[in-house]
């Protein structure tokens, strides 16, 4: 039998790696929420000549960037943006994927064939290519558009996952009996099928957040991510890219922030996955 989300969480926390990931993640989330209060996003200094690209010091533990801004404050403020982008985009793609997967798996037949062929087709194009095309088309709505296109390109795998799960569940006794008792399609889908796919979905969501953080960094590397002066980790790496040798701290710290966050997410996601796997028959 499948496991509920809370019990999954409990089990994941039982593993050392899972605990470490969760704690680190919590710390990063707290940092993202609290730090901006203590370290407001620094304004550009007017006389930029003397304060720019200072190496790490007591005043600026992470150094300063090309516009004399404190890198530590930027990393702190970037955390909020990068995490928010990732979480919202993944929530969007998980929702989309779940709905498409549910519909395809539940109705089967022509609906399933059409939906899954379309998904196959879209999956044959690497996500980055899709994103490049979409970002080009949607640039004027700022952050919201970026989140939207990242979300819109992320649901394909999820829909397959949910569909497979639904196909399996459809054959399970209690769903059949619910249908036999005359429950409507919507009721069966959302009351019976959906809750039972939450386990694998939560794993996919967790790992998806890590992927999106990396993806946003990649888009920023190509100059198409979160736009300045809004701080994001990817954008900060881009800022530091052309001074990598002369002022490595500008891109080192946001880079480390990405590695640490994605690592924590994956540790925890991995523990979740194992918990989910050991819970299934």
């Amino acid at each position, binding site marked *: 039998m499948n496991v509920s989300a809370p019990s999954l969480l409990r089990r994941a926390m039982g593993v050392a790696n899972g605990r470490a990931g969760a704690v680190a993640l919590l710390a990063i989330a707290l940092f993202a929420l609290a730090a901006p209060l203590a370290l407001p996003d620094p*304004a*550009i200094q*007017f*006389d*930029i*000549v003397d304060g*720019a*690209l200072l190496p790490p010091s007591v005043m600026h533990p992470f150094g300063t960037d*090309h*516009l004399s801004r404190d890198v530590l404050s930027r990393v702190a403020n970037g955390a909020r943006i990068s995490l928010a982008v990732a979480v919202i985009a993944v929530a969007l793609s998980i929702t989309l994927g779940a709905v498409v997967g549910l519909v395809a798996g539940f109705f089967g037949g022509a609906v399933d064939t059409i939906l899954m062929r379309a998904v196959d087709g879209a999956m044959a194009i690497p996500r980055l290519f899709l994103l490049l095309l979409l*970002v*080009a*088309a949607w*640039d*004027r709505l*700022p952050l919201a558009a970026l989140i939207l296109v990242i979300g819109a390109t992320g649901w394909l795998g999820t829909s397959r996952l949910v569909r497979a799960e639904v196909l399996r569940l459809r054959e399970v006794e209690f769903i059949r009996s619910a249908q036999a008792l005359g429950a409507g399609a919507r009721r069966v889908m959302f009351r019976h099928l959906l809750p039972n796919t939450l386990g694998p979905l939560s794993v996919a969501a967790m790992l998806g957040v890590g992927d999106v953080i990396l993806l946003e960094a990649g888009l920023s590397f*190509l*100059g*198409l991510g979160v*736009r*300045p*002066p809004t701080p994001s980790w990817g954008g900060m790496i*881009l800022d530091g*890219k*052309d*001074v*990598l*040798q*002369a*002022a490595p701290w500008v891109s080192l710290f946001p880079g480390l922030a990405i590695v640490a966050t994605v690592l924590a997410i994956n540790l925890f996601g991995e523990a979740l996955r194992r918990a989910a796997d050991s819970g299934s028959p």
Partner: protein
Amino acid sequence: MLRTTLAISLLFGLVACDASAQRRLPGTLVIVSGEYATLPVPTLMEGPASTTENTHVADLLFLRLAVEGPGRSTLDESGYEPQLARSWSRRDSLTLVFELDPRARWHDGRNVTAEDVVFTFQRAMNPVIAPSLAELLQGIDAVRSEGQRRVVISFKRPYPEQFFDATHYVQPLPAHLLRALDPDSIAISDFAQAPVGNGAFRWSRAVPGQLLEFTANPAFFLGRPGIGRIVIRVATDASARLNLLLSGEADALRAPVPPLSNRDQLEARGFRLVTIPSSSVGYLLFNTHARGDSARPHPILADVRVRRALVLALDRDAMLRSMLGPYAKVPYGPIPTSLWLSELAPKAADRDSMQAAQLLDAAGWRDSNGDGIRDRNGAPLALTVEVPGTSMLRRRLTEIAMAQHRELGIDLSMTVSDRGVWMERLNGGNFDVIFGSLSQEPTPSAFPQTWSCEGSGNASGWCEPVVDSLMTAARRATGDATPVWLAAMRALEESAPAAFLYAPYDVVALHRRFENVSLRPGSPWMMAWRWRVRRGAEIARDRVPR
């Protein structure tokens, strides 16, 4: 596994070095570039092929009749150096006569003849074949040959830049190879894949998208080249380009704008930075028409007082000091550093927040609700700048401009889009403010294309008849046109169609082993044949097997 890979490669590396060290001949220059020269053939560099890289490569292969002396005025006929033409004279105010150098040869050994020049001018002046060139050559009436070596160019009317028009735009092509081809098919012919020129370097091989190789033409009639071969490598990413220099794999990089902090790195690794004037100018262009609607005026920017205030609110000196150091100056109007007018123009206005505030107050923009942003009739003084995502410099300058404008209660924000979108916005007039940059021909006569009411490149709807008439007068002046051009620029500054932010210098990072180096504004490698490798400083790749 990492260690094994390294060990194996190290082994291979030693083998490779050993084998190529045997034969000895002079000099290899490896240039790294951000784009590939797709079609470096005169009269074909139109449309998608009108790239800077194409012109630079064409300048290696193809000579002009004569070249203007660096930094000289385009009005001045005495400042030219002979190339294909050994001498020239003026028959009357409408006719120039060029005598070709009898030693000039195509790379296939044939003589360069007057027929080649006539053939190429006919192509260049044909609006179907070369629309842009044809527009620039409008002043020329006819080009004909008198015998094998004499070319006669006649003009429609007298004007100061006749000599410039006759020599700058058209690099002769070998008529004997091209005449038989259909004019439309030259772009996809074998000739386009391996052009036959008449310059100091001949085409040797190409790996499309990756590299071009040229070998010295030992029989070059103006002198034996000091460098054996030139290789141009392509790396689209700026960091990759810099890495190729720092790792010693390349010798030269033209970086229009270097990150200042990399100067020390390059100098420590045997490079010097050479500064040459550049033909480009970067500016925030103000749309005087409503966004995307050329029938209505822009609600904010149609008012010249607001435009002036936006310029005066900027501390352009501080901007450039921090981002470009000594490698740029604040332009006066759209004057690039490569234009002789640049030395004569007055200094651009400093930041004057008092006057900017007064202008905004007078135009009715006041902060009535105390939120820090000025407003008028309930609408905030908010503008968006369109910035192309590929340009780090433009992004950074815009960030500073935003901070400086905010101090005066102007809410400037930024949209970064990829190049295609950005261009669509520019061409469609679909913007408030757009961060443009223009690389223009080295003559003030090119100004009206962008900065006049009816200019074909005028995207902002800006129109100031006084400027137009002054520029027309300058182009047709029979006496000294310089004061007229300066008057036109002053009128243009006062009307503030844009905030002109930077007129950069091109910076070329060049390995120190090269000596006798001269770099031309707008065409850095044109004179590379005069460079040579300092004796005793040769490195492995300078020993060219021939």
